[in-house]
């Protein structure tokens, strides 16, 4: 814990320890960094959505209040398009002011309130868990003293009070807002772990597999590839939940704190590549800055790379001094400039929005027209209800020899005589109780050169698959009774073909002898074909 580096009383009692934990005074380096970084991250979303403000957040659009999902549809007032645009512009301005630390506390409160307001009005495309986390962080920044350093407010304060402390004596403040940020993250991760515990089939990797195959977020180049290896996903699932539970404890341990945060950073970076989450990790990284305490900042500031930022921190006040000389300072100037800025930004946004004509109603031909759907599209969209096609119930049909947990760990297409082939059918939920047959076919020449197709059937095994089951394994021992060559395994449900898989049988080489342990390890439903 970092409290011993602060000005906390060195008392052994638990009351004093908690006093020291929350009320030790330190320079708010971490919170100031978070204040500078978080708003620009949130501005990515805000700027992106600004052209759609009328549609998303006003009575002239199609709001989607979160309250509707909770049966409280009229939770918040909705305003007309112009007012919504003006408020959204003020939100953007407040975020920028928060970041540079100009009227920081007012800006942060304004940002937190308006950010929540717009989020609650649009449950489809604005509010998500990362906007909720960001709202918590804005609130905690608002009650913190993050404005005391590296801010316009701090610069103005030094000008107003030139006899105040020198730069070497940076202002200190109680650390409790930073502690709340740290506890918030610990509780968030603990809650996420509880969710995973509640989620059926999370630990088998199936849920993660379907998530990586989902394209409702941004591009995730690793997702498709990773979805083919549910065993890896299952292992990641276990690691993630252990880390999520351990995080809240690790952050209180000096030696483990930054390891836990480093693992967290890696985890969030991976969610970019595997799940397509982009802003979420950036919000979390901004929050991690709240973990930086004075002693840690002293280490960071000794790094060479920090020299650039130190130079920047020194040169910005000098630049500001040249722009607004102290001789021109008036007591009312700053508040007036702040209010004027917000007002001008709001009015400008309303005007620009009017000129943009977001619904394109003032075009040369008046409002836009609707696109007719074709008869083919109509037939598709209004087709009669139909049951799921059998082949759609099958996620995959794989061959291998080694099963770990529920998954085949060595998918193969080539086997040697004497080996046992596990043919695994992975079934997607929902499905009814099913009877699956697996046929082993010889190959025969197809109509095209070098093509082989399923020929005479050699053996068939079948088993029932209960509705709650995701996988069915069929076991084939391929010995010398089958000559080397190409074969096919065909999976059927009733009269429907679900999948077909070609494999090659090679002559017996160094064949692993079947042991008693192996025989005992077979799943109960496995059947020996020959």
């Amino acid at each position: 814990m970092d409290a011993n580096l602060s000005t906390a009383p060195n008392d052994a009692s638990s009351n004093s320890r908690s006093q020291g934990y929350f009320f030790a005074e330190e320079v708010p380096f971490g919170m100031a960094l978070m204040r500078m970084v978080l708003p620009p991250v949130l501005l990515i979303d805000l700027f992106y959505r600004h052209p759609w403000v009328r549609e998303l957040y006003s009575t002239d659009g199609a709001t989607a209040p979160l309250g509707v999902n909770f049966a409280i549809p009229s939770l918040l007032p909705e305003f007309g398009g112009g007012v919504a645009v003006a408020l959204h512009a003020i939100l953007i301005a407040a975020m920028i002011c928060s970041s540079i630390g100009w009227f920081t506390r007012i800006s942060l409160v304004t940002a937190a309130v308006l950010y929540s307001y717009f989020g609650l009005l649009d449950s489809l495309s604005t509010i998500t868990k990362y906007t909720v986390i960001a709202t918590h962080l804005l609130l905690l920044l608002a009650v913190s003293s993050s404005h005391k350093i590296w801010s316009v407010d701090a610069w103005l304060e030094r000008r107003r009070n030139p006899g105040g402390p020198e730069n070497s004596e940076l202002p200190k403040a109680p650390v409790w807002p930073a502690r709340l940020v740290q506890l918030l993250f610990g509780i968030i991760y603990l809650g996420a772990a509880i969710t995973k515990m509640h989620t059926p089939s999370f630990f088998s990797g199936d849920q993660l597999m379907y998530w990586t195959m989902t394209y409702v977020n941004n591009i995730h180049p690793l997702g498709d590839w990773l979805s083919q290896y549910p065993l890896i996903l299952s292992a990641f699932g276990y690691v993630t939940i252990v880390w999520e539970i351990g995080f809240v404890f690790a952050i209180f341990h000096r030696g483990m704190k930054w390891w836990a945060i480093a693992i967290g950073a890696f985890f969030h970076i991976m969610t970019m590549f595997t799940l397509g989450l982009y802003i979420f990790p950036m919000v979390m990284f901004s929050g991690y800055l709240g973990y930086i305490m004075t002693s840690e900042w002293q280490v960071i500031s000794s790094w060479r790379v920090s020299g650039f930022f130190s130079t920047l921190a020194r040169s910005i006040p000098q630049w500001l001094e040249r722009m607004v000389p102290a001789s021109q300072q008036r007591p009312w100037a700053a508040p007036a400039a702040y209010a004027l800025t917000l007002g001008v930004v709001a009015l400008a946004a309303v005007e620009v929005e009017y000129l943009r004509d977001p619904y394109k109603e003032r075009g040369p031909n008046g409002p836009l027209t609707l696109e007719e759907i074709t008869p083919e599209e109509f037939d598709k969209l209004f087709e009669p209800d139909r049951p799921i096609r059998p082949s759609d119930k099958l996620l995959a049909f794989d061959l291998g020899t080694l099963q770990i947990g529920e998954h085949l760990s060595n998918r193969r297409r080539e086997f040697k005589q004497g080996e046992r082939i596990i043919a695994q059918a992975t079934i997607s939920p929902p499905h009814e109780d099913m009877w699956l047959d697996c046929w082993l076919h010889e190959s025969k020449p197809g109509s095209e050169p070098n093509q082989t197709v399923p020929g005479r059937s050699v053996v068939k095994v079948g088993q029932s698959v209960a509705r709650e089951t995701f996988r069915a394994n069929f076991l084939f021992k391929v010995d010398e009774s089958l000559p080397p060559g190409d074969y096919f395994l065909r999976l059927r449900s009733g009269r429907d073909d679900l999948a077909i898989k070609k494999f090659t049988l090679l002559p017996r080489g160094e064949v692993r002898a079947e042991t008693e342990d192996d025989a005992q390890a077979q799943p109960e439903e496995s059947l020996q074909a020959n």
Partner: protein
Amino acid sequence: MRKLLSVGFIGVYLGALGLGLVSHMLGAWNTAHPVMYYIVWDMFCGWSAYDSRIHVIAEGESQTYYRLTPTPWGELHPYGSLGREHYDVFNNHAGQIGLNVLRHTQHEPISRIFVIEEAWAKKYNLQQPVWESRYDDPKDKLSYFRVRAIMLPDSQVTERYDSWMAHQAGRMFADNPRLQADSKLNQPVFVRETPRQPVGRPFGSQSHLRFLGTSSPSAN
């Protein structure tokens, strides 16, 4: 005084976070109020094996059908490449998006608005090289469609149906002669009971129950 306020804030804040955690752990009160969305951390709430998209269609009085989404003036893609109507997992808002399009376009008188769900197995989302490395069969994507809601132009919802997934699950569950026979026993002749069906288990019929979800629309 300042310290007292600080202690109060710390107490209230940590109490709220603790309430959210306990509520989430016990599965109680987590849908009591929208504010619970701010203190319940259920970021990974599960994903289905089927992908889903939403189409909003208007029926003109001339029996011509019009596409209302994507919105004709261009649409927001909030988290990737999909319009916002596709994130309406609880089927509460897509119709409003259609009504907004009608308000701001020129068209013949409209008689009805349909919210239609399209679903397909997620395995068909795989890129072609990944598909070819695992599957011997060619990709044969089939989309299923199901009407989720029918609205009048005055925003009145006249029909509302459960999701395609819930419908299919119920259909499979009800594919049991004994269960069907039991469900028909003891039905009164004159008074039709409307028992409250468990959410997500609608036995293949329409469910008017409102889904109370705390999960993020994008589960971000």
